[in-house]
């Protein structure tokens, strides 16, 4: 039907863009508190522009991780954006020359707003307004947060080292929709904490990521066994 007005789409997009854009402040504070300079913090928000990866990277660097190990953890967190892009590319139907520029805005929030729209026009407005608002605010508040953290000095005394894990928990909570997700999360926590004393900084998180393929493999085998059971039953009936 497409009965949704442009103004309504813009309102939805602004709501998400403003609310999440302001959390760049938490990133700027965490990043500067982790020992990155204001310039480095701002470069991350401008160039990486996907929050979970940014938090993961500064956390891994603060823990003394090797730069490429730290980047690998951040990269794996960013892989989900490829799947948003896949669905968005069909709905947005952008000319190929525009896609490399639109790509930087393909993140959780723009996908959530755009994919919820009823028409192509609404999808494009939702994606564009959310992307622009979020990009501008996220970068401005990163700058303010990083400057603020440098000004107050010891960010741990203000409890700001708890901002990172709280952000991760807030991102994780809505993903725990079924027993499978909860099992993967539980295994990952055990691996991440259990291996922490024995492996170099940053590596335990990468090993913990293996919880995902391992859980899928176990599920696949279980399903395969059940499936073979069904086939046998059917062939039994045929005879």
């Amino acid at each position, binding site marked *: 039907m497409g009965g949704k007005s442009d103004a309504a789409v813009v309102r939805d997009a602004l709501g998400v863009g403003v609310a999440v854009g302001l959390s760049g402040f938490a990133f700027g504070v965490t990043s500067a508190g982790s020992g990155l300079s204001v310039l*480095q913090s701002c470069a991350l928000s401008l160039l990486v522009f996907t929050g*979970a990866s940014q938090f993961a990277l500064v956390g891994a660097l603060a823990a003394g991780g090797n730069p490429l190990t730290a980047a690998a953890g951040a990269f794996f967190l960013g892989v989900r954006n490829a799947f948003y892009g896949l669905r968005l590319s069909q709905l947005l139907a952008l000319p190929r020359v525009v896609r490399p520029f639109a790509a930087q805005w393909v993140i959780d929030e723009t996908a959530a707003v755009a994919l919820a729209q009823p028409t192509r026009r609404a999808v494009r407005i939702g994606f564009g307004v959310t992307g622009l608002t979020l990009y501008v605010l996220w970068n401005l508040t990163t700058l303010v947060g990083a400057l603020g953290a440098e000004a107050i000095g010891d960010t741990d005394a203000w409890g700001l080292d708890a901002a990172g894990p709280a952000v991760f928990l807030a991102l994780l909570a809505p993903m725990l929709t079924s027993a499978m997700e909860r099992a993967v999360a539980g295994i990952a926590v055990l691996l991440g904490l259990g291996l922490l004393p024995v492996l170099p900084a940053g590596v335990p998180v990468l090993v913990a990521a293996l919880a995902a393929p391992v859980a899928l493999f176990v599920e696949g085998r279980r399903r395969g066994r059940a499936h073979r059971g069904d086939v046998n039953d059917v062939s039994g009936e045929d005879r």
Partner: protein
Amino acid sequence: MNTWIAIGATALGCYVVKVAGLLVPAGVLERPLVRRLAALLPVALLAALTAQQTFADGHALVLDARAAGLAAAAVALVLRAPFLLVVAAAVVVTAGVRAVGG
């Protein structure tokens, strides 16, 4: 310098996966197993990161004010508080416990 290498590698890697989603033909990534894996990877990574950044001090596991902060964030999440309030709850409670506990 190391920090800039990490920033460069992350920026490049994260941009490449974003562009790939928009440019790659749908069939390549549409296989159910690949989709499931992409959905579960962030769950594993975020869970491990949450636990580590709450309980790690270098290579040692510790129970300190951050755990109280994370518990506050969890309560805020259960109460469906907005994102910034969840983070603020963790920060305020952590700072409070540190101030009281010295």
